[in-house]
């Protein structure tokens, strides 16, 4: 696992250098999709088995871990510098979370339908393309 992490971090740094984009952009796209693969698999299996609350619970739970635990672990080892360019993404993330919170107020229903799913995926593509 240690080698795996080394490969990923080194790869991210050198890909960022090669394409002339910042490390933060690479980490927000390639690294985060790669390290989220276990969540993706768990979530999709849970939905196919029709255990939808397990799927959403897994997503929201791992979000809380990602937001609290990762910066915490990093900062406890050594204080980490925060790049101001992350603020845009942080606000975007907050907006999506708030949208989900008020989701049922708008439409009197609590189901995320296929249409929403398509919009979510398109929004993700748009977000990634905005980053570059």
């Amino acid at each position: 696992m240690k080698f795996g992490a080394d490969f990923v971090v080194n790869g991210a740094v050198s890909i960022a250098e090669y394409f002339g984009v910042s490390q933060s952009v690479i980490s927000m796209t390639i690294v985060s999709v790669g390290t989220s693969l276990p969540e993706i698999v768990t979530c999709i299996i849970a939905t196919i088995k029709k255990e939808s609350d397990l799927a959403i619970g897994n997503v929201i739970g791992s979000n809380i871990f990602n937001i609290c635990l990762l910066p915490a672990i990093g900062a406890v080892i050594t204080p980490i510098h925060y790049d101001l360019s992350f603020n845009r993404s942080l606000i975007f993330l907050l907006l999506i979370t708030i949208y989900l919170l008020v989701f049922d107020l708008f439409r009197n229903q609590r189901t995320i339908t296929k249409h929403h799913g398509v919009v979510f995926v398109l929004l993700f593509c748009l977000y990634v393309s905005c980053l570059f």
Partner: protein
Amino acid sequence: MLYQILLMLIGFILLIKGADFIVKGAKNIAQKFHLSEILIGIVIVGIGTSLPEIIVTITSTMTGNPDIIIGNSIGSCICNLLLVMGVASICNPLKIDDNILRVHLPVSAISILLLAIFCNFGAGNYVISKFEGIVLLIFAILYIIYTVHEGKEEVQETRGK
């Protein structure tokens, strides 16, 4: 360049396999010590799927690439919400249940705000200090304790029925 991308792919595979291996090991140990299924389910599997992120975080701290930590943390969340939930709801509509709406989503919003405040207005110039790290860590641990508690109650309810 191709070599680097290939190495990175191998890195992801190693990380995921490694996490899987640790989860299986932890499950075996937990069962030997007769720990409850809920504890195993929530804590070990929950943290297990986040293990790749955690290891990458530690490695990037050690090698002095702090941008990767925050980027990975925020990026993974956005990826989870939009891509994972998007694809999942295309496969099968997702229902947001009461507990998630009342507890987990607000907690998630609060944790994002907490991180934003620490990053922008905390001590020092745009630095997450050790103290702020510990506060975030305590927040995460409280959340774990809550979910375990919630899981226990759910099991008791279903047994009662």
